[in-house]
């Protein structure tokens, strides 16, 4: 059994510090699981640390989880995820009454995409469109906003850029993740009805706690037991809400096939140099 379980997370925003202060305090003082937290500025650095055994568990995006899994030949294992990581999808949005009203209208048009390492705003839309016979560069021109590289789209800034391009006429349509689009609608951030989804992708899952190769089973169990206990503690609700979930759930590893295929085809599984 490890003396300390070291957890990695990516600080894509200053608020991440506060979230992990809260989680660390809970694990150490209430659950009596000795954890330490290491914050990274990119998922590439975090995956490298996990593969090198410098951290025991990584709080990964879907792409980072699959990179760790692939580069460890399947020996990095999924441990847990948020309920809100299940069933994401990508919306292709376009101006109401504009030149793009259905997917086939994208031929010869401009599609705005988020950061190239964002599963939901770049990798998967390019993949799903290719499956529908629309190939980037051949059938449509992409307008890419690589504004938060290394964060796998966590900051949402590239999706703001995508939507701005559609609203400004720099692009005819754009790809954004379902949580982002829901936030835009809930916040009334764009004129009602000005931009609408014209296509929704198949569903896929998002973040995943990922264990390093060789993490003792009892340490993985100590971690997940403590994590799932949080679901039943109302006073811990603020931490969960800050993290954007109602409850932690067991891994649903079946929701990653499309991204695994897309990331492989688009070269995201190359070993880190």
């Amino acid at each position, binding site marked *: 059994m490890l003396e300390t379980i070291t957890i990695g997370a990516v600080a894509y925003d200053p608020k991440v510090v506060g979230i992990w202060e809260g989680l660390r305090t809970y694990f150490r003082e209430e659950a009596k699981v000795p954890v330490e937290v290491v914050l990274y500025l990119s998922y590439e650095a975090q995956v490298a640390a996990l593969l090198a055994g410098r951290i025991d568990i990584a709080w990964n995006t879907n792409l980072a989880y699959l990179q760790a899994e692939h580069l460890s030949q399947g020996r990095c294992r999924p441990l847990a995820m948020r309920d809100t990581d299940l069933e994401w999808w990508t919306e292709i949005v376009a101006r109401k009454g*504009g030149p793009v009203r259905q997917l086939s209208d994208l031929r010869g048009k401009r599609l705005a995409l988020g950061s190239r390492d964002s599963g939901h705003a770049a990798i998967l839309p390019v993949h799903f469109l290719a499956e529908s016979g629309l190939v980037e560069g051949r059938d449509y021109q992409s307008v890419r906003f690589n504004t938060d590289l290394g964060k796998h789209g966590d900051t*949402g800034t590239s999706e703001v850029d995508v939507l701005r391009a559609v*609203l*400004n006429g720099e692009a005819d349509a754009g790809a954004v993740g379902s949580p*982002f689009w829901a936030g835009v609608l809930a916040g009334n*951030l764009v*004129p009602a009805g*000005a931009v609408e989804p014209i296509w929704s992708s198949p569903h896929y899952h998002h*973040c995943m706690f990922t264990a390093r190769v060789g993490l003792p089973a009892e340490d993985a169990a100590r971690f997940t037991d403590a994590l799932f206990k949080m679901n039943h503690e109302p006073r811990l609700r603020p931490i969960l809400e800050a993290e954007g979930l109602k409850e932690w759930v067991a891994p649903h590893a079946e929701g990653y096939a499309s991204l695994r295929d897309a990331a492989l085809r688009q070269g995201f599984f190359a070993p880190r140099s």
Partner: protein
Amino acid sequence: MGSPRPTLELHPEAPSFAAGLLNELVAALGELADGELLALHGPAELQQDLERWARFTGNTLVEMTPGSETTRYLVRKGAPRSYEEAPAVGSRLWLYSNFDCNLACDYCCVRSSPRAEPRTLSLEDVQRAAREAPPAGVRELLVTGGEPFLRPDIAEVLLACAHALPTTVLTNGLLFAGKRRLTLRELPRDRIVFQISLDSPTSALHDQHRGQGTWEKARAGIAAAREEGFRVRLASTVSDARAEEEFRAFVRREGIPEQDCVLRRVALRGFADEGVALSRADLVPEVTLTASGIYWHPVGATDDDFFVTSRRFPLSEGIQAVQLAFEEERRFATALASVFRCA
């Protein structure tokens, strides 16, 4: 406001964004360069959605003019400037001492002239503002008009201000003669700076905007203030980059320190019928106290869209009202940053 001349007029077929207006709007903007104006004619109900669109995209809704059937929305293509380098809101306090003026400059942003209603800020109000300013966080006072030296009590006004904080007085410099020259001698040199308007290196352009013979008189006023021992800053209102560069060269030739030269473009406000279109989104507020209320910025101190509150005192509450209005203006950026939650 004057009568801004848009580059393009748009009478869209779709009456709303939900009906497809956005397509017509982006097509029209596609024909404009950054900084050019589009006049969009649409229903009054369009305002909120148009503001939302402008904020998200970084274009600027400059003006709305209700008509009998439609409202004319003036949209400037292009993003407002960054807020990052501006002084803290409330650290400067502008006092509009009066709105009447001995000149009638054709670009005056607050329509001052000899016929303008003075709307004088009473001496009691000036004294109270000066007293309450330092504890409210103000670090600098700026007295402007109109022409402040038209006031018979200008010495008391400036003494009250200078007693409280370092003070700059904006003037055309044409009235430093006779009794008013003696007034200068009552004022503390170490607490008061004069900012005198001089629009061009030679008389032609200055006189064209401000009146025949005013350039020579302004030069004499600058000399008089300097002779009395005051630091003088030159303020030049220019219409384009070429005029700006000519003035900078003049300032260098005259040996005037760069920090004593204030250059600004003509603002599309007041009497001006062309110039830089400005909205609240363009300007970090500089709290501006007038006889009728508190405004967002001195450049729009007669315009409803820059009006913040009629409750002027306690001054700290007036300043807080401007700060809250600024927070509201910035709220949208924060909302964008928080729509996405992840790890």
